[in-house]
């Protein structure tokens, strides 16, 4: 046997691909506070895009703008070639944007399986009465969706906690269930808000593996906020850096890493 079996990792991103999402001059204020100030960047189809920055830089606000929870006072958002109007998170979800949250937002009393099934809600077309009957079309719809959910459970290796109420799970697993629920939507754009916060090294390695696999195997575009620089540098194709709501750098991880503004923003500047 020769070295010919050694894996060749194909780059998942099509660098020349059209942007899936483009933000142009986005400004968001809360009263007198400018959370985001004239920020423009894009997310290309199939890439892993990291949004980083010190505390209070406006990263989470940015995700909230992308998924329609906040409405920027200025600027345009173009998603899949269409300029977005004022809308609700519900619309973003039905357009294929899914997200996870910084502080786990699962239904604690429900099982892992039910939580992930909740992620399929938008895929279920049968009404309340049909569901009550649990017969015919409603049943086959349930089976079809359950199958999709089981594939995600298999993918994220959470078979053992399928029937466990998520409130009883350790934090790292809850994060994984949250990712599973987001994946259940079959998203085109997946927003991850600090997917590794509070995890130990092993959990981080696992989560990194899953994020890469989601991106590579399913072609899902991912935008993530993360504080662990090692993770950001290893995972992402491109990084955008925010500081006090202003974009200070944008580019490949190694470029951003050397950028003096970024170093200053993180370490502070001598006065």
């Amino acid at each position, binding site marked *: *046997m*020769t*070295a*010919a*079996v*050694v*894996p*060749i*990792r*194909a780059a998942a991103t099509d660098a020349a691909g059209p942007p899936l999402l483009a933000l142009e001059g986005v400004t968001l204020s809360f009263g007198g506070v400018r959370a985001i100030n004239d920020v423009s960047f894009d997310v290309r189809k199939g890439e892993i895009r990291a949004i980083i920055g010190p505390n209070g830089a406006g990263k989470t606000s940015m995700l909230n703008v992308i998924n329609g929870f906040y409405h920027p006072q200025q600027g345009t958002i173009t998603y899949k070639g269409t300029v977005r109007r004022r809308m609700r998170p519900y619309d973003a979800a039905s357009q294929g944007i899914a997200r996870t949250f910084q502080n786990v937002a699962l239904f604690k009393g429900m099982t892992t399986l039910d939580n992930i099934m909740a992620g399929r809600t938008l895929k279920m077309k049968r009404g309340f009465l049909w569901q009550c009957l649990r017969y015919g079309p409603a049943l086959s719809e349930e089976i079809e969706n*359950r*199958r999709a959910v*089981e*594939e995600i*459970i*298999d*993918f994220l*290796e959470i*078979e*053992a906690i*399928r*029937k466990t109420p998520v409130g009883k799970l350790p934090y790292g697993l809850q994060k994984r269930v949250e990712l599973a629920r987001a994946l259940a939507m079959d998203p085109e754009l997946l927003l991850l808000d600090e997917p590794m916060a509070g995890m130990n090294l092993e959990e981080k390695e696992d989560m990194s593996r899953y994020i890469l*696999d989601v991106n*590579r*195997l399913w072609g899902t575009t991912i935008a993530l906020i993360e504080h662990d620089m090692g993770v950001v540098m290893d995972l992402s194709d491109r990084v955008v850096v925010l500081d006090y709501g202003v974009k200070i750098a944008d580019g490949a991880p190694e470029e951003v890493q050397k950028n003096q503004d970024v170093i200053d923003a993180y370490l502070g500047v001598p006065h």
Partner: protein
Amino acid sequence: MAGAVEAAPAREDTFPKLLLRHARERGGRPAMREKHLGIWQTWTWGEVLGEVRAAALGCERRGIGPGDAVAIVGANRPRLYWSMLAVQSLGAVPVPVYADSVADEIAYVLAHAEVVAAVCQDQEQVDKLIQVADQTPKLRFLVYDEPRGLGDYGKDHLSAFTEIQDEGRAAMTADPGLADHWAARVAAGSPDAVSVILYTSGTTGRSKGVMLSAGGCVAAARDTVAFDRLTDRDEVLAYLPLAWVGDHYLNYAQAMVAGFCIACPESAETVTQDLREIGPSFYFAPPRVFEGLLTRVTIRMEDASRLKRAMVRHFLAVARRHGAAILDGRPVPLTGRLAYALGELLVYGPMKNVLGFSRIRVAYTAGEAIGPDLFAFWRGLGLNLKQLYGQTEAFLHVTCQADGDIRSDTVGPPAPHVALRIADDGEVQFKSPGMFLGYFRDEERTAETMTPDGFVKTGDAGFFTPDGHLKIIDRARDVGRLSNGTLFAPKYIENKLKFFPTIREAVAFGDARGFVTAMLNIDLTAVGDWAERADISYASYQELAAHPRVIDLLEQAVDQVNRDLAAEPAMAGAQIRRFLVLHKELDADDSELTRTQKVRRGFIADRYAPLIEALYDGSTERHVRTEVTFEDGRRGAIEATVSIRDMTPHAGPAPTLREAAE
């Protein structure tokens, strides 16, 4: 051995022949199950035959032929079991490899066995094999079961299991006579050929490849299938490592002989749930699994309501009194039977149901000594738990306990058709139907293991009880003598100590010394719990271990062990005279334990030489400084003053040793 294989010429004597027979006789019965996407999938014997045949013919197209070794690397998956059968049907030899082995260990086995191909479970295993490809020159190609993550790997030497099967099926379509030809070759397979090479886990030096013959394997499995009356209605959950003789025997060989169904767990983490869903009728687990389950039950009971706790306490007492007797068919008063029946309804039945034990007819445990209380607990619940003693070289069974003749402190009388004897130096030696052909490519060690008259040396020391049960006391080379000639079996004493929940590890010393001493490790969970209730505050393991009241607690345990030892004529002289509680936990990172959590007595004796000196020079305490390795690899040292306690020996039935060296 003559008589081991019964003289019925038509009986199948290889595993592939048995497969053909089951497909013919019980083609519609379930042969294998696996949970996939949350649903149990079942393959009948007829379907398994089809899968195996396709895989075998595919492998043949790839150049696998008689005598070739094929590694099987992974967990219990139907396709890996089929691979074994497919390989065996071609006259080639499967070599199962421990899935959790690191790449270097795998490289050694693959190179030593001259493996030409490997069937891997998933990307993890494929990666390991690719990593060591330069050390395994004969390895030509890899096959994988689970495609995930392997999409962008080069295809030259790597194929999916389904691709191999497709090639086999295509060949059958092209040549309709191929299937019959394959079946005819299987039917002509020789029982004397090597059926499998099982590598021993290698706690003592490099692992050895144990060659087992097809006829021997089938004969051995036939004996125990008859012994435990297993039929094709039985069912097992195969969760033991594929490369371990226990899985190959208890699950694979017995299923092939009896025609019962093997269920494969969904993943290693779901075994407890799968157990409950499958409800196996035959079960094997090492003692620590039974211990873990008991702990789980106990902890959950503490959270239950008062009424339930009282009910469980009451009926467990009933079970302790009558359960084992009812199970063994001994006379039990009618009131006892009624109380037990009520207990079965209210406590034992539901408890067994939760654990997935409801349908178990036969359960075995082996590998380590099992605590008498633990053993009695499970038997009291009505679980037919028995002990066996076996070795890879014997193809498992050397002794096993028969229904109704069960003891916690013996491993039972010789298994059917096994000849057993104790050599002059106390070593157990056997001859069995499944006895190995030799170590692969290691004549020297084969010769060391065999006696001139064809018995196999086990390396274990033991003796027979008056009624013919074998009692294993220790590894033969660890058994020593005190300076006055009294037998000293360290592990025997250590096991007795470790049966106490408060004692995590124990190391006994005494070879060539005047008396026996012991170093103990407290069990932080159990002692910590006790300390909380006893209002003892502590900041660290070290502080708790040095607390005088904790040492008092352990003194009671040691005293009880001495009392037990005093009751046994052979052991009464080896009572513990002095002991200490170590200031740190014995740890595999510090090389004090092996990776399988066995104490390395010699290493510990060197490392704690000052403490051993103190144990024997009569001092009451000693200050020590010990180097430790932290989890992240940093090194440091801890210092402590360790106090030493004296014990008063109990008078035994035989004259005890009086103040030999103090």
